[in-house]
């Protein structure tokens, strides 16, 4: 990073950090969870590649449940795409779980609004049931040890500074190998 970029980054941090701290250190709609162990999550992605959440221990995981028929999900997905872009190379694994839709439905939707994201397919909805989200969309933040530490309530504007700063400020993991949709 050159000198000018460092100055800009520091200036942005000084300007935006107070936004993250303005609501009890958590951005709007994000609540702490008591650290229960995350349920198993083993699914194939839309390309047929198997995925196991347990294989990503050591990273923070952004586990997001959604469906294309859900209005707030449709509004939120472009925001997640922007969030991924703005976060850049961070130690945060993005895990998108589509609930009970077909490959065609998922492909058609994501190709239009978030073509850079690769979702997992919970084709019969059973994995979603086990996670017990409070509704769709729902986002869980799973720590590097596999415990659910935060849950986002409803759709959120993840690309906004308060959320980006919050995500960037999660306790660092022990390893930082890029993985998933980053």
């Amino acid at each position, binding site marked *: 990073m050159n000198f000018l970029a460092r100055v800009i980054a520091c200036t942005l941090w000084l300007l935006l950090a107070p936004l993250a701290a303005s609501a009890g250190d958590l951005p*709007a*709609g994000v*609540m702490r969870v008591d650290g229960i162990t995350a349920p198993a999550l083993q699914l194939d992605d839309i390309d047929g590649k198997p995925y196991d959440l347990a294989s990503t221990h050591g990273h923070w995981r952004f586990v997001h449940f959604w*469906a294309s*028929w*859900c209005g*707030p999900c449709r509004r939120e997905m472009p925001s997640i795409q922007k969030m991924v872009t703005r976060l850049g190379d961070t130690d945060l694994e993005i895990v998108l779980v589509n*609930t*009970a*839709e*077909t490959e065609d*439905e998922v492909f058609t939707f994501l190709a239009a609004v978030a073509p850079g994201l690769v979702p997992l397919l919970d*084709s*019969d*909805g*059973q994995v*979603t*049931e086990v996670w017990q989200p*409070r*509704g*769709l969309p729902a986002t869980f933040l799973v720590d590097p040890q596999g415990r659910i530490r935060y849950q986002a*309530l*409803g759709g959120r504007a993840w690309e906004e500074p308060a959320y980006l700063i919050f995500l960037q400020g999660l306790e660092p993991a022990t390893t930082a190998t890029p993985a998933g949709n980053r």
Partner: protein
Amino acid sequence: MLFGTLPWVSAADRQFRGPYIENDTMLVGLIPRSPEQMAAFYEARGFPREAIDRIRQTCFVTVHIENKSPDTIWLELDRWSFTSNGKPLPRLDAGYWNAQWDAIDLRQASRSTFGWTQLPPVRDLQPDEPVGGNLVFPGDTETLNIEARFRSGADRQGELITIGFGNIRCNRETQQP
């Protein structure tokens, strides 16, 4: 108690396509759906004809709720009352639908999707948390009244909030398929 049919509530600056009430504590809005709308929605998601036929025979009302207060607000459908022509109106709940789906051996994915489109029976709405979903009533219902009662506070001991909607009309089929 606040009534959703009063005109003053329409001053809010959001685009809500049905009766709604918004105050400093919460927003509650309703959108009555036609059988055609509901059939089209579920048909587009691969529901079979037998399921669509059952859905068409009922009355769907979509509910949207937002907790705008700094406290917990409890959505507890068992505490709500539904009436039509002065008589209690049954709500077609998960038990009803599970029996319907068992009868036609509906696949699990469709059951899951249908379940997620229903208003949850219980939810501890946190500050800034929205929730939405459908309430379903018998298809021969013409108009209905809803009295929604919300307890507040983490221990449910806070103010009781009551919101009423009167003369909600079940949208009828405009033409047979």
